[in-house]
């Protein structure tokens, strides 16, 4: 049985081909289009996976997309309503791509692949959890996923046992460890969704002198690992940037200009 997995339209589009449970091929679209973190429909990566598997799309048994665009859209709408009319500009900027592309994911897949068979959508954190558990050497394991945001979930705890994977608990948007980290990536003048690595690499050069400030104002971290962010310091829920003026005031200045000297 040939199963094609697809991720697309957020960042780092990719495709993977699994045959009878074995991983045949997997690749990111950016490697073929030479556009870093390419988020377009991964047609080159898909073509490669099928070629590696020696098949064309008619020999697929099932196609799976890695998240649920409609649920994501619902989050966007609800978030916008909660902040309205503040987020109008970001809403207006974000809308066209949803109306033209993301909400039509089903049609796009069918059209691009000429695929009329079984088409499934997993939840974002379910996909992450599955990628962590199923290839692992473990018969059973706790599964922890953490990122920016999927549909609503920003982190999940699950349990994998044999062939089954259950998500037990989730943390929801806008409270996100990934987005909090990205806010600092943005504030320190690096590119969100790729410069996080540099922030981590720089961390040991400095001292954690802002940790107290972060705990006191930005994040209420509970003993059980759940947390709430104080959204007055962040702009990502409805705005166009990651951090808000209150954040800049708290840390004593505007974001660092990218490429300027590190101090």
């Amino acid at each position, binding site marked *: 049985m040939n199963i094609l997995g697809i991720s697309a339209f957020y960042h780092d589009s990719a495709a993977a081909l699994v045959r009878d449970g074995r991983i045949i091929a997997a690749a990111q679209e950016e490697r073929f289009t030479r556009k870093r973190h390419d988020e377009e429909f991964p047609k080159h990566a898909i073509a490669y996976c099928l070629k590696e598997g020696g098949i064309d799309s008619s020999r697929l048994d099932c196609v*799976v997309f890695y998240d649920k665009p409609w649920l994501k859209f619902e989050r966007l709408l609800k978030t916008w309503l909660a902040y309205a009319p503040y987020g109008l500009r970001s809403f207006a900027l974000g809308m066209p791509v949803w109306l033209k592309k993301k909400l039509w994911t089903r049609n796009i897949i069918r059209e691009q692949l000429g695929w009329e068979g079984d088409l499934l959508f*997993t939840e974002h954190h379910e996909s992450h959890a*599955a990628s962590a558990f*199923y290839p692992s050497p473990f018969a059973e394991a706790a599964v922890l996923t953490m*990122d920016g945001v999927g549909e609503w979930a920003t982190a999940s705890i699950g349990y994998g046992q044999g062939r*089954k994977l259950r998500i037990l608990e989730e943390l929801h948007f806008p409270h996100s460890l*990934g987005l909090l*980290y990205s806010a600092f990536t943005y504030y320190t003048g690096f590119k969100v969704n790729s410069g996080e690595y540099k922030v981590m690499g720089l961390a040991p*050069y400095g001292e954690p002198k802002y940790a107290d400030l972060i705990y006191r104002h930005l994040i209420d971290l509970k003993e059980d690992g759940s947390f709430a962010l104080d959204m007055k310091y962040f702009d990502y829920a409805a705005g166009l940037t990651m951090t808000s003026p209150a954040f800049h005031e708290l840390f004593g200045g505007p974001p660092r200009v990218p490429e300027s000297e590190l101090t």
Partner: protein
Amino acid sequence: MQVVCEEAMLRMARRAQAATGSKNLCLAGGVALNCVGNAHVLRSKLFDRVWVQPAAGDAGGALGAALWAWHHRQDKPREPDGERDTQLGSLLGPAFSDEEIGALLKARGAVYRRPAREELFEETARALAERQVVGWFNGRMEYGPRALGSRSILADPRDPSMRTRINLRTKNREAFRPFAPSVLAEKANDWFELKEPSPYMSLTVPVRENRRATLPAVTHVDGSARLQTVGPEANPDFRDLLREFDRLTGCPVLINTSFNVRGEPIVNTPEEAYDCFLRTDLDRLVLGSFVVERKDQPKTGEACAKSFTPD
């Protein structure tokens, strides 16, 4: 921020342990690319073992979705052996034959050689020991953000000037960015303090105190390194190169950084590797069985038409 992130990861891991009672932990999602945080979770001893999906970011969702459909939805069994994962070293992308590579080099007018296999490893190891920076293109491309020995730039980790040279001159990126080491799995423990293999560079580990002065180019300011352990299965050629380097120098460690320049995705095809070689100061390019040396090339005025915006 990093310490807050680590603390939050640790508390979530504690919660995951309490909720499941398991001694094994699997991690994914973009935050799981935070190898310092992962190491923190592993060191906490909450779990005996930790496995991190190498394509932890959104790209990995494609693989997860497909595997979920097979095991969870189709209800098909897994057969984990408790030791090895089924990710195949994450070498899941395209490979190119020597015929294809030879044809390309010929068409591009490169000056190249095709030494016998042992010679290839021997002379590449020697070049590395002589402080050459080598573009290494071999087998199937990596899935996920890290270069794991298929599309890698390799260099001698004993040379303190390597960090600056590769960052500034070869890859045109910030000088502070640390390099990751690859080490022969069976010798890893002599050089690094680690409890389990790290085949995907998803953990940082302390460099052993007595080795830090020997490995200046891969030891971070806090004495840590983001390590790849290279075992027998996934990438035999890369492993043989490490062995050869070890035999020559007594050091089973190489700098392993992704084969690209700043802002560019990792190279996929031999042609991209060759173009990258032309517009950087790599001393040598090993493409499958072929060797292309900088010193043999006619004056390299050939600039690559494409330029990449910094990341």
